[in-house]
């Protein structure tokens, strides 16, 4: 296994503002000294409560946010030291699926344009072969090819999410960071997407970081699970261990969620 992405003691804090004048009162530690490596063919799950820092960690991983401390390495090189061609190559290596599909798709680009664009940026396919590639991508995420000419706002929520997944897969990345990729999908389509990701890890040696609040989906897909809370990595262990011998009360709570009773205080 080759390490593709590695976070080394990364932290990210945001200014904390208060009062009507929004004076800076201090800082929100969204991610605090997290170290995590992701290798080829590996599926790593990241779970944690709302606001625990999962999306922030994902944005650090893809070089979208600059860490306030520590660094993230892509194939051994820090994101913020890459220049020109190296950076473009790294951008192709690491793809992501955002939590919020409406904001990640260009509202004026049709489905076909959204899927062709990365192919042309990275000069991967042109003409008829690009068209065939777009069709294959649509099929991968279970969308009919009749959707080619639709705009994002002409799709349902789950369809938009699937276009986001297809776009990330278009360039055959070595690593994929997915932020709640199946949250807006019903169980049947969700299960198919899980199956697709599983096959990519197994057959194409994709390195996958799968963020979800759904511990069931994570456990069925991932070999290792990381649990975050208040910006910190609470535990990181093989799935079997997390599920059978959770090391932290929060993890236990997640596991026992099905038993949580609405009428209990």
């Amino acid at each position, binding site marked *: 296994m080759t390490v593709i992405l590695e976070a080394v003691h990364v932290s990210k804090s*945001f200014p*904390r*503002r*208060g009062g*009507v004048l*929004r004076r800076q*009162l201090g800082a929100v530690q969204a991610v605090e000294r997290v170290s995590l490596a992701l290798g080829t063919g590996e*599926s790593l799950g990241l*779970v*944690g*409560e*709302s*606001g625990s820092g*999962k*999306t922030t960690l994902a944005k650090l991983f893809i070089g979208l946010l600059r860490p306030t401390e520590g660094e993230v390495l892509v194939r051994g090189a820090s994101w913020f030291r890459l220049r020109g061609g190296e950076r473009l190559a790294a951008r192709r290596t690491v793809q992501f699926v955002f939590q*919020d*599909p*409406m*904001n990640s798709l260009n509202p004026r680009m049709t489905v076909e344009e959204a899927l062709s664009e990365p192919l042309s940026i990275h000069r991967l396919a042109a003409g008829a072969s690009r068209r065939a590639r777009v069709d294959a991508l649509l099929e991968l995420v279970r969308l009919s090819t*009749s959707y080619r*000419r639709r705009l994002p*706002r*002409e799709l*349902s*929520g*789950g*369809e938009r999410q*699937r276009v986001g997944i297809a776009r990330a897969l278009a360039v055959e990345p070595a690593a994929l960071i997915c*932020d*709640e990729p199946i*949250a*807006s*999908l*019903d*169980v*049947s*389509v*969700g*299960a198919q997407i*899980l199956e697709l990701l*599983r096959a990519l*890890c197994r057959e194409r040696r994709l390195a996958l970081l799968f963020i979800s*609040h759904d511990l*069931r*989906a994570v*456990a*069925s*897909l*991932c*070999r290792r699970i990381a649990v975050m809370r208040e910006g910190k990595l609470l535990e990181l262990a093989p*799935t*079997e261990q997390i*599920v059978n011998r959770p090391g932290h009360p929060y993890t236990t*709570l*997640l*596991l026992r*969620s*099905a038993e*949580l009773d*609405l009428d209990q205080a």
Partner: protein
Amino acid sequence: MSTPLLTVENLSVSYQGRGEEAVRAVEGVSFTVEPGEVLALVGESGCGKTSVALALTRLLPSSAAVSGRVTIDGLNTLEAAADSLRAIRGGTIGYVFQDPAASLNPVLTIGEQLVEAITLHTEARGASAGHLAVEWLQRVGIVSAEERLHAYPHEFSGGMQQRVCLAMALAAQPALLVADEPTTALDVTVQVQILRLLRDLQRSLRLSVLLISHDLTVVERIAHRVGVLSAGRLVELGPTDQVLRQPQHPYTAQLLQYRNMISLRPNHQ
């Protein structure tokens, strides 16, 4: 039985595509929601759930053709004048849209947006509206609510934005809440807190809820009745227990079967 708060009769929605054939998203759907009732709509991605929700108060784009009859608290919304519709939107009927980030205003603080919803639809003004805003943020589980009031939407996480949308809809004290996938971004601990809040409001204020969710566990926890949509048609409608225990339609059975496929047992060999 009381008169329904919401009556939907023979609702159909089709979208006129550019170049392509019209998309028939909803076909002949009928159901009611009683005061204090939680009705869930479930179904596969793209089956027409959001289209139904938006059609209720004519929020669909102009490319959509809508037919049928919708009555909310006595008002025939598909025929009503634009201002009487505007008056019930955000008032009698509150929405939590499927895409929370897109439904918040990026240039107003969370507090400004909440206070606006409160002053527009309730008697509260000034400081008391401000207090209510803090209270609603607390009720949806936002910690340090008072301080967070001055944050902008982009400074909130996905799940926090989703909860703000719910707080805004509820703060206007609607009689009917239409919530389109309101808990997708929430982990179970927060999700249970939100469902508890909805149940409390449903019991104490007789809030009615049209809940759209693909999460059958959520549906099971809170809905009195469930409607199953498949390719735009309502293929099954009945009490939650009955629909989830003895599904009548093959599609419903399939939904339940898929749910059991995803288990805690690792399946990555």
